[in-house]
């Protein structure tokens, strides 16, 4: 738990430094909303990570994960009758 708190603190410092640098020094070459608004990448990163975790851990895992012996010959012959 202590470790987790330290990790959060470290990551928040990194985010704060990056955000400050972006606000002070960045001159975006492209003009989409995520290039212009400072800190938009933080939202993309955080939400994107949760979307991927949800997709992988909840949907793909539930639909497509099987036991290790799923492809073993015994199973195949059983299916073939």
């Amino acid at each position, binding site marked *: 738990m202590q470790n*987790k708190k330290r*990790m*959060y603190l470290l*990551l*928040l410092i*990194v*985010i704060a*430094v*990056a*955000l400050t*640098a*972006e606000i002070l*020094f*960045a*001159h*975006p*070459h*492209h003009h*989409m909303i*995520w*290039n212009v608004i400072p*800190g938009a*990448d*933080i*939202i*993309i*990163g*955080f939400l*994107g*990570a*949760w*979307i*991927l*975790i949800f*997709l*992988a*851990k909840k949907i*793909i*895992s539930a639909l*497509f*994960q*099987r*036991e*290790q012996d*799923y*492809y073993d010959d015994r199973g*195949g*012959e059983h*299916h*073939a*009758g």
Partner: protein
Amino acid sequence: MLDSFMQPGLILIVAGIAALIVPDSVRKVIMIAGPVFTMAAVIFSDEDKLAVMFGLIFSLISLIAAIYNLNVKDRFELAAEAVYAGSSISVVFADSWIGMLIFWEVMAIASWLIVVSSRTEAASKAGFRYLLVHLLGGNLLLAGIVIKLASGSTMIECLTGNADAAYWLILAGVAVNAAIPPLNAWIADAYPESTMGGTVYMGSFTTKVGVYCLIRIFAGSELLLYFGVFMAVWGACMALIENDLRRLFAYHIISQVGYMVASLAIGTPTGIDGASAHAFNHILYKGTLLMCAGAVISATGKRKISELGGLAKKMPVTAYCFLIASMAIAGFPLLNGFVSKSLIMNAAAESGFHWAEILLMIASVGTLMSVTLKVNYFVFFGKCEKDIEVTHVPLNRKVAMIMGACSCIITGILPNIIYSLTPNQIDGHPFTVDHVTQYVQLFAAAAVAFVMYLEHMKPKDKITLDTDWFYRKPLKICINTLSPACDSIRCFVGNKLGDFFTCANEYLHNPRLMLEKWFRVKPAKPRNCLEDDDVLQKPAGWLIAVNFGVLVLLLVFVFANI
């Protein structure tokens, strides 16, 4: 035509064949000298920049992988690896369709030999499936090339804009090698079963040769953009739940090849440069990751993440090389993945494909979580209660891993090395404040999400189904059902035909039987033919008698006239 076959790749092919017959000590020299001479031949060749760039990175990774494999004694595996690398370089340098096709098939066979060279039952089965898929790809390519040749086109050309049969057939053939879904399952099926060194070769060549051919033949085909972006996101998702170390990297190959496919599909000079630069960098960091994974599996005898942990203290060189390469694959600034991803993002933004730009950014987040955070935490740097026994990692393997990690750093700090090699030499301007802060924010925010979900991120000991399910389950059941059905039909038809011929034979031997049966002729009195002189002797006797009479008459007539 002969020029198509006289290329740098031949040096490695000859080195591979020589490795089969020479003694061990000479073989080691040949395995190192082969890639070095090939690299020299590539540098001094007068081919276009794209071919030289791919030839250069192929020969460089052959050299690093050969050093990694110096302790391997199996001469067949080493020969197959050298021939595989040589044929890949030969595909890159081929000018004609025929030259490309021939080396393409050599590549398929050599890579199959690498898969089966670990000599396990699983490898043999996975190798068989691998060979079938690649021969299918080769045949599709052959069919497309035959159509091109019939229309009088012998040299490789860009087909973008066409929509004829040749276009689709060649695209399908190349898509097999580039692992474009749904033709992707062979990669996660076969790569983990190969030998440790073999996986390094395989992770570097087949898919990147596919990408090279896509750049040369299909650059600017917008359809591929959708496939590329899907591959990038989906590969990262699959890697996130994967437990087998090398299977995880197989999915990451799909994800990273997705970036390249998307970039080449954009088709602008920046897009082409992005795809080629990313292929170059990918070979370096993926080679290093696979070498580190191989070192871990060899040293511990375990290949599942759930069985590993806390290895950083026991295998520090491997752990830190892995850390560098895993940061490079995600796209950390000052490492090479960042350099080429900047080009790809620029290409997507300049061409107005903003949805692709966002999704590729999310895929980068997936890469960060599934390799940089997940593997480093659960295999190397996280706490582990288990005491895992670790054997010594040979020096040559450490040297190869360090070479790979250093090349990721050098090309990351000096991006102009890469930009000067690309076909259009476009500068990605990676170290602008907005680029660097974008990636730092993206990764730090994703890391927060990862830490929040840390307890559940450890992969389960399960396998994930892929498109190989279609030919490993339904097709297998289908064949297992159809085969006995076909067999019983064959037996039935065979028996009936047998009966017919037996019956017909009887009638043909004695047609009278037919008359007796059909026209109700009175059956002949049964008799023994051998004892009955009427059957043959009487007519023969009469014939002889008539002939004799004619002869006598002739003689009388002749003498009477004289």
